[in-house]
């Protein structure tokens, strides 16, 4: 009796010990494998993200023109910015563009998403048609639009000409260049439209049915159900739109980049977008320190704007809580 009651105790203890040893081994195994597996990403993070960001910050305080080694000049690059008329022009161009593009891109893409969400015959074919432009690579779309927006024989002015309306010089008139750039970017908005489509389709049908019972019309249903239920996606697209519109480069470079970096970007530098000017400073004039300062200003602006947008989120973005209305 006595012996028997004593024996199980050490077994239990050793079992517990074994268990701990096992989990420790398991934890050890997970830690080792974990770090091995993420090692490439960690190296990438340091080598291509964090390292360069810090290097760029340091460079922005230097005068570095490739031939000579970087020379510390403190805040001089930043102080020079307001006096640089080309820089101010690029800020103006980009702000004008963003002010037009950000709201329009959201509205247009959302409208397309709504149109695509209709249950009509052959809807997949029509959806594909609306989406097709997004498949066109930037260079090809620039080529297409250079023709389509040509004042003489472009497709856009063709109907205007038939109607006897004034014909804007889309790509030649400084006043129209920004609008043309917005138009070109809106054409390739299929991705955003698809995202909105998915969000709109994701709104449970029962909500609309309940609203109909209460006598809601299409308009109230749209404002009180569709918009709030898709607000998180609208919010996210808005952030993407802000980040993207400040960084527009390829189309501007292809259409207005000029043969050399000393050519104006479009008539009167009307298409001197921010990143285009940054690019010119870095790879055209080889002013790496100055270009870094310009890039850092952009980085800060994008960061601040994103944070501000996130702040407004509480006011208008509706997130479904688990176990909330949907369940």
């Amino acid at each position, binding site marked *: 009796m006595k012996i028997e009651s004593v024996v199980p105790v050490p077994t239990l203890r050793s079992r517990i010990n074994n268990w701990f040893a096992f989990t420790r081994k398991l*934890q050890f195994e*997970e*830690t080792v494998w*974990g*770090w091995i*597996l*993420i090692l*490439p*990403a*960690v*190296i*990438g*993070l340091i*080598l*291509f*993200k*964090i*390292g*360069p*960001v810090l290097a*760029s910050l340091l460079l922005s305080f230097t005068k570095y023109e490739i031939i000579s080694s970087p020379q510390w000049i403190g805040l001089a690059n930043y102080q020079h910015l307001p006096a640089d008329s080309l820089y101010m022009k690029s800020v103006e161009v980009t702000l004008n563009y963003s002010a037009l593009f950000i709201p329009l891109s959201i509205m247009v893409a959302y409208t397309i998403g709504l*149109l695509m969400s*209709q249950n009509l015959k052959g809807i997949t074919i*029509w959806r594909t*048609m*609306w989406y097709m*432009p997004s498949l*066109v*690579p*930037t*260079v*090809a779309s620039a*080529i297409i639009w*250079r*023709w389509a927006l040509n004042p003489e*024989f472009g*497709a856009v002015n*063709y109907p205007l000409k038939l109607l006897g309306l004034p014909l804007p010089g889309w790509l030649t008139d400084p006043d129209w260049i920004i609008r043309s750039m917005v138009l070109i970017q809106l*054409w390739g908005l299929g*991705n*955003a439209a*698809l*995202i909105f489509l*998915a*969000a709109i389709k994701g709104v449970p049908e029962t909500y609309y049915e309940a609203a109909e019972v209460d006598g809601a019309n*299409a308009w109230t249903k749209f404002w009180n159900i569709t918009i709030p239920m898709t607000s*998180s996606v609208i919010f*996210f697209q808005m952030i993407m739109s802000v980040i993207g519109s*400040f*960084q527009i480069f390829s189309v501007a470079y*292809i259409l207005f980049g000029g*043969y050399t970096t000393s050519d104006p970007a479009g008539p009167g530098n009307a298409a001197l977008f921010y990143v285009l000017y940054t*690019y010119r400073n*870095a*790879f055209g004039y080889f002013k*790496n320190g100055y270009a*870094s300062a310009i*890039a*850092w200003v952009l*980085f800060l602006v994008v960061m601040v704007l994103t944070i501000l947008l996130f702040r407004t989120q509480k006011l208008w973005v509706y997130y479904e809580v688990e176990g909330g209305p949907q369940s």
Partner: protein
Amino acid sequence: MKLTRLFKQSLGYLILVGGGLVMVMPFFWLISSSFKAPGKIYVFPPQWIPNPVRWQNYVDVFTEVPVFLYVRNTLIITISSTIGTVLCTIVTGYAFARLRFKGRDTIFSLLLATLMLPYVVTMIPIYIMFSKVHMVNTFWPLILPNFFGEAFYIFLLRQFFRTIPVELEDAARIDGADRLRIIFQIMVPLARPAIIVVTIQAALDNWNGFMQPLIFLTKQALWPLSLGLNSLQRFETGLDLTHLMMVLAVFMVTPVVIVYFLAQKQFIQGIVLTGMKA
């Protein structure tokens, strides 16, 4: 009531179809122009159906433009970058989804934070770095970074891996399989849809890429299609090769359209997921 509904529906139809036609019109013009004679492209009124149809353009383009070279360069960049992205994304995504270890969450949030980082900020130091190791004017600057992961795709695969039941890999672990075997023999087949999405998106980004090739590749012998096309539209040769440029543009668009129609579901899924990051 019924009549207004009918009216509404036909209006919706009209906008949808009419707008759709307007959207594809420029696209159609591109294809049609690739069959036009040199002086017949920029004419008024716009010519929608080429007359006569010049098949010759599709022959001439090979003698006038180094098409094979451009295609070869584009393929080298696209294929190797995509392989790099997919491989790195799979292992990293798995580790973030399944393994618990110290520092994991810190690294993961750092990785996500880089999504906000504009490329222009890192562009200059990265360029200097690659020029110091004499890799400017090689494909390495375009390919190498992909082997070190792309934050967004890692996030995407991590989310997908988390939906796969742990029991499936426990069975294999009892049989003594190590992590790499679990990843490639169990997780990868199960995560196929998500991996296809990543593959398509990554391939597309590289195929269409413009800014990075522009920065790193200044020699024509290294140009991908995007840069070749750009040099044509800038009339850098001094000749009017507009009709051949249209052919080259068609060459560049066609594979994308084919992939879209072959894998429409994954393609669209990829885009929708990209937009739902948050």
